[in-house]
C-alpha cells in the first residue's frame, strides 16, 4: 500500500508525495505523527503543498492517479490558496457565559481582541481548540510578534492543515 503525505507540484505537474511499501495505515502515535508533519513541512519548503489527513493510505498508484486527474481543478485551487503561506494556531481566551446574550457579548469581545491578527492573515478558520490563520510567509514574523505581544498562545508555523477540505475520489 501507499502512504500519501501531501499533494503538491513537481515540474509544474500535480504530484502526490508518498511512501511506498506500507503494509497498513499507521497508528496515530507520536513518532508517526512527527514523521508526517516533518515530511509535509519539508515539502512545503520546495513549493505549495496540500497536506493529506494523517493516516491516508491508498491501495495502489492508480488510486492516487485517478484522484489527481478527477480532482485536479480543486487541488489546483487549494494549492493556489496556500502558496507562499503558512498556518499558525492561536488559542483565544475561552468564552464562558451563563446566558446566550452574555455569550454573544463575550464572543464579540474575543473577535475584537483577535482582529489585529486577522488583519495580517489571508484566511482564518475557527477550529475546536484554536483559531487557524493562513499567513503570507513575509508576514509570518510580524504575525508571531503580534501574537506574543498580545500574550496569546501560538503554535506553528504549520503546513496548511486547516485550509484543506474533503475530496471525492
Amino acid at each position, binding site marked *: 500500500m501507499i502512504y500519501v503525505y501531501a499533494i503538491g507540484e513537481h515540474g509544474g505537474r500535480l504530484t502526490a508525495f508518498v511512501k511506498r511499501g506500507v503494509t497498513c495505515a499507521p497508528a496515530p502515535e507520536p513518532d508517526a505523527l512527527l514523521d508526517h508533519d516533518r515530511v509535509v513541512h519539508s515539502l512545503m519548503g520546495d513549493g505549495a503543498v496540500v497536506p493529506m489527513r494523517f493516516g491516508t493510505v*491508498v491501495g495502489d498508484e492508480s488510486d*492516487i492517479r485517478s484522484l489527481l486527474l478527477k480532482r485536479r481543478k480543486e487541488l489546483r485551487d487549494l494549492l493556489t490558496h496556500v502558496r507562499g503561506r503558512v498556518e499558525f494556531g492561536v488559542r483565544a481566551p475561552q468564552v464562558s457565559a451563563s446566558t446566550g446574550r452574555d455569550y454573544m457579548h463575550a464572543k464579540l469581545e474575543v473577535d475584537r481582541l483577535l482582529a489585529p491578527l486577522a488583519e495580517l492573515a489571508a484566511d482564518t478558520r475557527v477550529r475546536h481548540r484554536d483559531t487557524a490563520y493562513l499567513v503570507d510567509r513575509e508576514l509570518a514574523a510580524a504575525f508571531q510578534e503580534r501574537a506574543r505581544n498580545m500574550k496569546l498562545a501560538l503554535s506553528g508555523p504549520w503546513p496548511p492543515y486547516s485550509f484543506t477540505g474533503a475530496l471525492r475520489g
Partner: protein
Amino acid sequence: MTESLVQGREVTLVDLVDRLLGGGVVISGDITLAVADIDLVQVSLRALVATVEKVAEGVA
C-alpha cells in the same frame, strides 16, 4: 508551555495531534482507503524526505 517538539517551530504534541487528526485533505468515494487502525501491525514510518517518492503525475 510545553517544550517544542520541532526545532525552530512552536509545536507541542497536543497541537500536533489536534492538527494532524483534524486537518488535511480527506478523500471519500471510490478510492480504496485504509483507515488508521491500532489493531494492525505496527509500521515504522521514519521516512526522510529523501525517501519520499513522487508518483502520479497529473495534468499540468
